[in-house]
């Protein structure tokens, strides 16, 4: 039982020590608002761990556990198995993990959970680097982005998580962004109502790691979606459904210009980024058409 020392409108406390303008804070409030009280959280180390409690202090009114970077999906699977034994079919087991905890260090446990189609909701908030330990590059860091381990800009592109997820044939997967919180909430609600392993991949701007003013978090996410640098889509019953066509597809200049992490990515790299965006989008469109046949 929680000892209540503060009041809050929703399930998350209002005073959390995430940076000013942090995308995670927007995401977790909306996610938990939709999932409701009947939820158990698994959060690995990373910036989101601020929400899983520090010492005796809790930031959410939910039961949860902070595990390891390697095993969020495995811990969530275990909790789901426990509920299955108890005949509990209503509680949502939600893993809420960073990109490092998903595409790098925890990829094997997520892959296993997807293979076994565990009854969990796995959410990756993607701030495109290991932010909590000082902005090290992850395999989600995009081409040309500068981090402390890629000071001259990352020489290779990022792993395509949603395609890795689709290759496992899970019942539901989707991408979302803080650019469109209504769409994000709709997808969380849909995922909540489906059984089996559901995966959401959410674009999460980080003012500290990306180098922009904290007021631009949503604006930047919008630029990402409009340029196709972040593609909104859903994958359900083996079919791909893309969101609205990006209005400036293949023009990531404005998106990149807003962020200091791309200051070394000029000329050739911008052109390369734009080419990749277009070819990836065209490929996804083909997948969408395949599903429609």
């Amino acid at each position, binding site marked *: *039982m*929680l*000892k*209540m*020392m*503060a009041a*809050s*409108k*929703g399930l*998350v*406390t*209002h*005073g*959390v*020590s*995430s940076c*000013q*303008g*942090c*995308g995670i*804070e*927007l995401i977790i*409030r909306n996610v938990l608002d939709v999932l409701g009280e009947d939820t158990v959280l698994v959060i690995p180390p990373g910036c989101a761990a601020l929400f*899983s*409690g*520090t*010492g*005796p*202090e*809790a*930031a959410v*009114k939910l039961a949860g556990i902070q595990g390891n970077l390697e095993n969020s999906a495995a811990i969530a699977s275990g909790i789901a198995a426990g509920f299955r034994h108890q005949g509990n079919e209503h509680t949502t087991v939600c893993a809420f993990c960073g990109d490092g905890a998903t595409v790098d260090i925890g990829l094997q446990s997520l892959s296993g959970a997807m293979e076994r189609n565990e009854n969990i909701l796995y959410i990756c908030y993607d701030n495109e680097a290991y932010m909590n330990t000082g902005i090290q590059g992850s395999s989600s860091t995009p081409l040309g982005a500068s981090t402390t381990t890629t000071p001259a800009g990352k020489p290779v592109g990022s792993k395509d998580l949603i395609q890795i997820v689709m290759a496992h044939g899970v019942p539901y997967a989707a991408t979302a962004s803080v650019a469109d*919180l209504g769409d994000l909430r709709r997808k969380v609600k849909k995922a909540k109502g489906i059984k089996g392993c559901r995966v959401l991949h959410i674009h999460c701007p980080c*003012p500290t790691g990306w180098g922009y*003013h*904290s*007021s*631009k*978090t*949503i*604006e930047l996410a919008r630029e990402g979606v409009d340029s196709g640098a972040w593609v909104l889509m859903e994958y359900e019953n083996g079919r791909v459904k893309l969101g609205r066509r990006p209005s400036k597809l293949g023009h990531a200049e404005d998106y990149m210009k807003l962020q200091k992490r791309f200051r070394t990515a000029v000329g050739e790299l911008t052109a390369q980024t734009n080419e990749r965006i277009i070819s990836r989008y065209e490929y996804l469109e083909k997948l969408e058409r395949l599903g429609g046949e």
Partner: protein
Amino acid sequence: MSTQRETPTSTPAKRRILGPCSVVFTAANTGSWRLERPQLDESKCIRCGTCARSCPTDCITVSRDGCPVVFDWYYCKGCGICVNECPKNALSLVKERGEH
């Protein structure tokens, strides 16, 4: 090599929790970080609620009557997202200490 325990783990004689357990629901005074604060021009506000939905700390209340937008200064971090997202430019960031 470790051996498997013989007593079933599902019926422990005593339940023990290892590690720190967060049981006190608290809130940090994040408003103390603020260097700038959002300021409302009531004449421009249409009470649409966009600012409240965009606020990471969820510290804005938009009402139909009276003052349209109320901030909880104990929590507002002064990030400026509400200012940036307001469709009517009814908000602006001003220096916390008043000097413009």
